């Protein structure tokens, strides 16, 4: 499916600020299954851009604005081709990936409640080994059932164990709970941040706001094969409506914008994300 994304972030300050530094992860990923055909980043005021690829392979753009200002607008426009069934072959992982996607991370502590939740939904093969694919699917469904989709009850700092205890949250919380469940039974799993296309006449209860179409889900590694990608908020596999933006251990590694500035001014951030077919 061909999808177009327009992602605008507007920063406003109640007093002039100086030395603002912003990092942006907004360029959709290119891999064997998804192709980012075009990508354009526009800033107001017009700024020089530098870029690098982070340790997870995400594209990062970096801007500085050292002169006094009260507003900064960042807009990214991308065009992406997605596939209906996503599978990313990667039989061998680096030692660091093998470690990072298995252990706790800042948003994904592996406490007793999460461990019990994971253990309760494992699926074994006939010869008594863990069936990774079946367990991952079972944990996705379990997460989908354990949480009620509800915005406003959690925030950007909520961790997996807190969301599980609350039994509610948004896509970020669904993803963190499923990551915790997977890792607590020894399955390697990583966080995917992205967008979700929802046709106007086909909205489901768990779908994001059409003006804020950001989304999050989970990649699970099948040993010796590669990554399958599961969306616990919708209890489905990644579809052609999912656009992959960045991957990491959890939300810590993938925020679309991250910034600091000098001065005591208050910041107001407005985000609008629209996905078109």
């Amino acid at each position, binding site marked *: 499916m061909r999808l177009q994304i327009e992602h605008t972030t507007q920063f406003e300050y109640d007093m002039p600020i100086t030395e603002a530094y912003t990092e942006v992860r907004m360029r959709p990923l290119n891999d064997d299954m998804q192709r980012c055909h075009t990508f354009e980043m526009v800033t107001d005021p017009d700024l020089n851009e*530098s870029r690098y690829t982070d340790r997870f392979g995400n594209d990062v753009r970096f801007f500085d604005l*050292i002169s006094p200002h009260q507003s900064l607008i960042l807009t990214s426009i991308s065009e992406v081709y997605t596939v209906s069934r996503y599978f990313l072959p990667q039989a061998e992982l680096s*030692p660091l990936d093998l470690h990072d996607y298995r252990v706790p991370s800042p948003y994904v502590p592996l406490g007793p409640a999460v461990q019990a939740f994971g253990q309760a939904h494992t699926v074994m093969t006939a010869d008594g080994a863990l069936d990774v694919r079946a367990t991952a699917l079972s944990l996705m469904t379990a997460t989908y059932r354990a949480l009620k989709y509800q915005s406003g009850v959690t925030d950007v700092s909520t961790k997996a164990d807190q969301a599980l205890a609350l039994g509610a949250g948004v896509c970020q919380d669904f993803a963190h709970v499923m990551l915790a469940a997977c890792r607590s039974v020894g399955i390697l799993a990583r966080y995917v941040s992205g967008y979700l296309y929802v046709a106007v006449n086909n909205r489901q209860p768990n779908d994001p706001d059409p003006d804020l179409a950001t989304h999050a889900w989970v990649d699970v590694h099948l040993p010796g094969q590669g990554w399958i990608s599961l969306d616990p908020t919708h209890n489905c596999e990644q579809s052609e409506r999912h656009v992959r933006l960045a991957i990491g251990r959890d939300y810590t590694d993938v925020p679309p914008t991250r910034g600091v500035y000098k001065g005591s001014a208050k910041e107001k951030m407005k985000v609008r994300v629209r996905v078109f077919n």
Partner: protein
Amino acid sequence: MSDVANQSLKSVLDQYDLGRFFDEMFSASSQPRPHYQTLYGQLGDLTPQSFDERRRAADASFLYQGITFTVYGDNDDGIERIFPFDLIPRIIPQREWATIEKGLTQRVNALNQFLWDIYHEQRIIREKRIPAELVFGAKHYRREMIGLDVPQRVYAHIVGTDLIRDDAGNYLVLEDNLRSPSGVSYMLENRQAMKRTFARMFARYGVRAIDHYPQELLNTLRSVAPHHEADPTVVLLTPGIYNSAYFEHSFLARQMGIEIVEGRDLVVHDNKVFTRTVRGLKQVDVIYRRIDDEFIDPLGFRPDSALGVAGLLNAYRAGNVTLANAIGTGVSDDKAVYAYVPDMIRFYLNEEPILSNVQTYLGLRDDDRTYMLEHLDQLVVKSVNESGGYGMLIGPHATRAERDSFREMIIANPRNFIAQPVISLSRHPTYFDGEIHGCHVDLRPYILCGEKITLVPGGLTRVALKRGSLVVNSSQGGGSKDTWVLQE
């Protein structure tokens, strides 16, 4: 003073109690080792009164120059103290130094290769020579450094390695300091004090010079500038005047003739780092930073840090500035990673280590942990990320309650603890409270690594001034001595 007032210093030295330790100066009572013979003769000729006068003059000069060190206690208020200086120098014969120099060069070489490897190919982990969780689970492992290329693959430009001697006089490596090793200013000031106080003795002894250290440090920093810049701008980045080592920061900057800056004096623009001057912005090529990783860039690390420079990590990644030491070197300061340095030397250099480690038990290894827990009363237990003598259990001197609390901590978090046998550190005659005592010493040589590896001969000899104390860190109330490496 009363004990020694009526004697010559010789008779005081001859009454000196060697204890059951390796003594640096004496092989037996009244039997100085050959390289201490001249010192023994000349000290012996002094009267205690004249020795004490010189000592007071030396102390006054330290106070006058404001050479102080902040001691952190249980509460967070640092107490500023004069770093106690002892007038009896520690002497190292040239052939011993030659071995130390070779051993440390080898060690720092292997450590730099290790640091490059863990941020690139991770070959040592793939080949299972060190556990992945030890490296990737280390507190100071920095994922931001993956794939980032540093000039000449040098990560640790300034290393301070702590050496001790066991009861047979063998030099052993106690720990490596690859983040911001401090103390080199004391090494330099101790030498100045010694030269003033014992000018003639010093001249006759044939002591190798160390005064060129600041120049060597500057050469090292200049040699790692980006793009082979012909005349690079080097600055020293300090957390500021409240830092316990601020004296050293300003001292070194002055000696090198470079600017000392705080985070707010630097600004990043277009991925380059600039210092603000009265004539505008001036680009900086190399930063000798004495700020910890977490605080160095609020965008890349802790956003609440007011000490750092926003965007610095990206300028560094773009290759427009060199940081010394590199970000992420602290993984080697982890005391469990330390245990693998001999294996690193074999793995990367295909050589046998010239200097040995202290035998180390790792909480991570089941057999080691069992041994640790069964022998807590005989071992020194250390938390892997603490330094400066904090977070330590000295088993034989600890109470039952202290041992029990460490037992619980080890069981709860085995990866974070190591244990070592209690080493009888060598001792050195040291003057305090009006007497000469045998005090435990260690040695911290400073290794500079740029285009080449350089050591100035000697280093900082630290002394445990509390009677019987085995802890020599300056933050635990230790003192120091001038360290003489002889020409022949």
